[in-house]
């Protein structure tokens, strides 16, 4: 038992709020502790802490307590620490980490007439159980507290760090001498000292630039250059010239994708590969913006905050393309949930903890900002244990002609939205800057916590289009340096930083300039009046920081002193192109023969295999995740992520159609990292095909599809890793040409690796996510995959080969060399057009794409979703039941339309079964299994 006397610093008042009844959060925590291998924790209670600094009276306290505590749900006490449990752990956010509860309490206390200086919040965990010191350390370090954003105290009262608002107080700039004859060695030394993360060609370019300009470099200028030229911002690998192992040099990867889009020349592409998002138009007068981003590393170190701000960032991308955001997507890759705690690398959270944090972070942002989270995928593989991947996408709409406009000289530069703090300063490039000494006490600075309400207000002000401004961009990586630097690219800008509102005092100019504080937008405005009025109406902070000049220089002041003076031509075009080498992969390309299949897989039991596949976490129900996201808001989600008789089946794609519109858009995702490990080129072809299938299956027109590419890869400086990337881009281009579906935007996240205890670097599996956005010409003729009525016929559409490389049948049976990854089916585009026609003609009652687990899994999913039985005819072999060949669908067709379907598709359509009213799936070999049993396997929780 612990009993520590109350230790409140004078004038800091502390309120502990306890739930009055059962707290479901505690059950979750106990389970998480068991996952960490701690079985001796018997009970845990979670309390909320509120700290108030100031001279408050007893009456003030009473008022605050009434505000903070609902007596039916909670109990509360002031200024007590006393512990009745064996251990008490308390935590509070570091100074500088966004704390919206504290912010709101501070504001509303004033409304109630209670004057307080500052507010902070925290948490308290009361633990019972025979815990060793090691147990306690593990619980604190891996479950209860995240040292990146929180301080903690064990068995003693936490002292909170208060954040006070203010403007910058420190100033100053230092000069860095780079002699014109500096050697490569000198330059590398500078590189290391300053943590610039540049390569030697880039360092020489910087040296020569300053030498020819006859100028001495300011430290902030070097930071701005390093930021602008970083892999994250400049996409050096995608822009590199690449020499292959056979000596040929190929065009840069980004140009290959762009050229493909140009060759396709689709009439609905309005803007591709420029600005914040791709822009397309399927209907005259309406444009759609689409974008997908990754937020992998931040999500690994702070799962909630990383995923949270990933969503916020991609929504700002769409807002920064002058579109009103209407829907969000996400694709999440985690380590296997059953991973043993002892198998985790040092410093890595358990996959369940990462999953819980990431999903909560995504739900928190999307639900609060009021956008439906409609489509996505959750994948599990051991390759993601140390490097989880979080892809967040956003789609927006504009109902007036879209004209991208550049700022003009004389336009004011306005920063809108959240306040500036040290957020993100320790990320990436700047990790070892000597400047960090000034921020040593702010270890939370590398992680941002989002504030969705502030961003919602930005949407309220800016989402209605371009009336209020000429040009707009979001503040993302690189902060103002990147945002203003890009907007000023062709003309120049003059900036004064000292007026920007700050989260807390003491920021140096370089910190303000490079801060990655969230929820900020930068706009160029000719006449600020109307924008200022709109900001006042919605309560958005508006700061005029300068103007665009026309002299081609980026000049930044702080309190009148110049802190940056850079030639924008050099900043944006001075980086020498990178040259890289790739060793191309040589994957197995032979499919299996029936004999080889029997040899490899033996005499597998179909029902057992089917149940194993359905319960595999990659295939099993994701309903528990989907219910966490508001997918109903806006009332426009016509084909929902969950469909069918019990609203628990998975849709292939989703359809968004405004309630009274006759048309809509479909969103489909393709991803298969297991294919990527064996054959990156076929993986790319396959996942483009999968994304196409997912939109066609719900009723979209395959001739009106735009694609997004998102690559998460290992270190491309390893020539084999780059070879896989080159092969994947080749596959993307070939698939886009085959479908005449252009890429309009993309993003790459490279270096997703960690150093294992074996001394080797481990990369994530090559993970390419394809998002397809397609036109749905008739909202009334959309289709879902659930079986609808007994007596209907099930038709298999497409060509089945014995393709098991990296298939899920191979995964669940532990077969490692199962031949080639499925090939691209060149007949697919023609077939998809025919299928679209059949769907529009009303010939198809249900349609489901065939992916992981093949025909057997797809049919079981249709039966589960419709809670209908199915009787298969005996014309499919066991191998054909589970093959993952591309380009295939299952259709449910009423008997009256079967002949028409067979006639239209010829050999590519075969009848494989009948829908029955019995709750049973009868398989070709006279085996059968109840729908209930399949459902239980599919809904198993891991």
């Amino acid at each position, binding site marked *: 038992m612990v009993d520590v006397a109350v230790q409140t610093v004078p004038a800091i008042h502390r309120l502990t709020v306890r739930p009055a009844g059962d707290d479901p959060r505690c059950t979750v925590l106990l389970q998480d502790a068991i996952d960490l291998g701690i079985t001796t924790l018997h009970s845990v209670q979670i309390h909320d802490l509120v700290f108030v600094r100031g001279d408050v009276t007893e009456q003030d306290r009473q008022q605050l307590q009434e505000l903070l505590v609902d007596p039916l749900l909670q109990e509360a006490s002031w200024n007590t620490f006393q512990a009745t449990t064996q251990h008490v752990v308390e935590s509070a956010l570091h100074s500088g980490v966004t704390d919206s509860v504290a912010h709101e309490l501070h504001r509303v206390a004033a409304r109630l007439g209670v004057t307080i200086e500052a507010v902070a919040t925290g948490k308290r965990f009361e633990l019972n159980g025979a815990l060793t010191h090691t147990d306690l350390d593990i619980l604190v370090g891996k479950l209860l507290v995240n040292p990146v954003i929180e301080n903690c105290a064990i068995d003693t009262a936490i002292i909170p760090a208060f954040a006070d608002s203010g403007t910058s107080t420190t100033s100053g700039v230092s000069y860095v001498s780079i002699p014109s004859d500096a050697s490569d060695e000198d330059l590398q030394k500078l590189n290391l000292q300053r943590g610039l993360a540049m390569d030697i060609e880039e360092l020489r370019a910087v040296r020569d630039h300053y030498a020819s300009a006859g100028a001495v470099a300011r430290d902030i200028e070097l930071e701005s250059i390093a930021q602008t030229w970083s892999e994250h911002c400049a996409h050096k690998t995608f822009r590199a010239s690449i020499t292959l192992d056979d000596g040929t040099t190929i065009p840069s990867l980004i140009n290959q994708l762009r050229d493909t889009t140009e060759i396709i020349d689709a009439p609905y592409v309005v803007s591709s590969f420029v600005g914040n998002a791709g822009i397309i138009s399927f209907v005259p007068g309406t444009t759609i913006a689409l974008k997908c981003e990754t937020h992998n590393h931040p999500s690994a170190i702070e799962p909630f905050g990383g995923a949270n701000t990933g969503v916020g960032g991609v929504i700002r991308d769409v807002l920064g393309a002058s579109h009103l955001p209407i829907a969000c997507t996400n694709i999440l890759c985690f380590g296997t949930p059953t991973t043993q705690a002892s198998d985790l690398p040092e410093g890595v959270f358990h996959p369940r903890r990462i999953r819980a944090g990431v999903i909560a972070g995504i739900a928190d942002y999307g639900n609060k900002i009021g956008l439906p989270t409609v489509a996505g995928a959750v994948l599990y593989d051991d390759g993601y244990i140390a490097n989880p991947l979080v892809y967040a996408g956003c789609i927006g709409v504009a109902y007036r002609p879209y004209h991208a406009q550049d700022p003009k000289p004389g336009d004011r530069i306005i920063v809108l939205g959240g306040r500036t703090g040290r957020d993100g300063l320790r990320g990436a490039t700047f990790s070892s800057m000597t400047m960090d000494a000034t921020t040593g006490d702010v270890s939370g600075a590398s992680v941002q916590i989002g504030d969705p309400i502030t961003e919602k207000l930005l949407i309220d002000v800016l989402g209605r289009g371009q009336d209020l401004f000429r040009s707009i961009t979001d503040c993302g990586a690189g902060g103002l340096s990147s945002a203003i630097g890009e907007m000023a690219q062709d003309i120049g800008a003059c900036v004064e930083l000292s007026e920007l509102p700050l989260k807390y005092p003491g920021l140096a100019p370089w910190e303000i300039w490079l801060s990655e504080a969230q929820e900020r937008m930068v706009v160029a405005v000719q006449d600020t009046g109307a924008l200022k009025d709109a900001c006042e109406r*919605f309560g958005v902070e508006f700061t005029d920081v300068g103007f665009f000049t026309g002299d081609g220089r980026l000049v930044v002041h702080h309190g009148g002193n110049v802190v940056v003076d850079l030639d924008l031509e050099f900043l944006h075009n001075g980086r020498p192109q990178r040259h890289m080498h790739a060793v191309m992969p040589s994957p197995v390309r032979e499919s299996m023969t029936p004999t080889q299949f029997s040899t490899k897989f033996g005499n597998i039991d179909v029902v057992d295999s089917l149940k194993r596949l359905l319960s595999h976490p990659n295939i099993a129900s994701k309903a528990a995740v989907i219910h966490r996201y508001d997918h109903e*808001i806006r009332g426009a989600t016509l084909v929902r992520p969950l469909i069918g008789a019990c609203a628990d089946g998975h849709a292939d794609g989703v359809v968004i159609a405004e309630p009274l519109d006759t048309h809509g858009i479909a969103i489909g995702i393709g991803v298969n990292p297991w294919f990527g490990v064996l054959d990156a080129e076929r993986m790319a072809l396959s996942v483009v095909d999968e994304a196409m299938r997912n939109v066609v299956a719900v009723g979209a027109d395959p001739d009106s599809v735009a694609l997004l590419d998102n690559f998460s890869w290992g270190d491309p400086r390893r020539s084999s890793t780059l070879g896989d990337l080159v092969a994947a881009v080749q596959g993307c281009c070939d698939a886009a040409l085959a479908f005449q579906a252009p890429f309009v935007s993309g993003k790459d996240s490279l270096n997703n690796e960690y150093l294992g205890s074996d001394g080797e670097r481990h990369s994530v599996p090559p993970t390419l996510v394809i998002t397809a956005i397609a036109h749905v010409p008739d909202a*009334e003729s959309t289709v879902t995959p659930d079986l609808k009525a007994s007596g209907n016929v099930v038709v298999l559409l497409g060509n089945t080969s014995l393709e098991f490389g990296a298939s899920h049948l191979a995964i669940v049976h532990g077969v490692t060399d199962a031949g080639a990854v499925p090939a691209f089916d060149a007949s697919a585009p023609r077939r998809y057009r025919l299928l679209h026609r059949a769907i529009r003609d009303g010939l198809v009652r249900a349609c489901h794409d065939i992916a992981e687990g093949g025909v057997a899994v797809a049919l079981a999913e249709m039966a589960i979703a419709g809670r209908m039985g199915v009787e298969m005819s005996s014309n499919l072999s066991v191998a054909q039941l589970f093959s993952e060949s591309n380009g295939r669908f299952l259709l449910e067709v009423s008997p009256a339309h079967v002949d028409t379907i067979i006639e239209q598709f010829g050999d590519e359509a075969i009848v494989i079964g009948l829908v029955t009213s019995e709750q049973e799936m009868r398989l070709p070999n006279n085996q059968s299994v109840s729908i209930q049993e399949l459902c239980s396997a599919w809904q198993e929780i891991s």
Partner: protein
Amino acid sequence: MTLPVAAVLCAPGTNRDNDVLFALQLAGASPVAILTNELLQNPSRINDADILVIAGGFSYADALGAGRLFAVELEHAVGEQISTAISERRPIIGICNGFQTLVRMGILPGTGQRAALGHNTSGVFDCRWVELEPSSKKCVWTQNLSENIECPIAHGEGRFTCDDDTLSNLQRNDQVALRYISTNPNGSVDNIAGVCDSTGVVLGLMPHPENHVVRRQHPQSHRGVSRGLGLSIFQSGVCYARR
């Protein structure tokens, strides 16, 4: 004929304002959104409204508890005007965060009664469709409904809870306006999804009838299902405002 004016009250973080504006329009009202900022400057805007709506969302990010700060702001800005509206029997509806706000203001269930909306028993935000049975002849928003309503919930704090006296009062006074049928998604006492005040003109409910106002919004429309439009709740309110 002039349409009844419906004022949709919004705070920073209110996010189903557009959905309810659309529903009110379909139901035959002339809806207008008013921000708390604007109410503070001009409280009399409430007086022009025939119907008051507090829309759903995450007002003030749910900081200090769902609906808490919205309640403080509304009380401060237009507390008296809202009391007047109730005494004049102008219909008022609070949906989801709006319900939480009306409970925090003490308007629901009403004087001398104690109720709250706690965390769902699942412990997490939950978005799913539910079926609701209208069960009050007193509530002007539900008294004429002829079929059950089907619409989604989307909340983390929707568990209606109250002390025993309050519950028996609510039941006795016909103030339980809507009950969950077949599934109780959040652990609410007596399956309560919505309650009205003792006058019957103020309704608060957790589910979102504004997201089922056209037939094809029903999640089983692809299976030929068409029933339970949430629009009828708004039509009832509009109809009463016209009387």
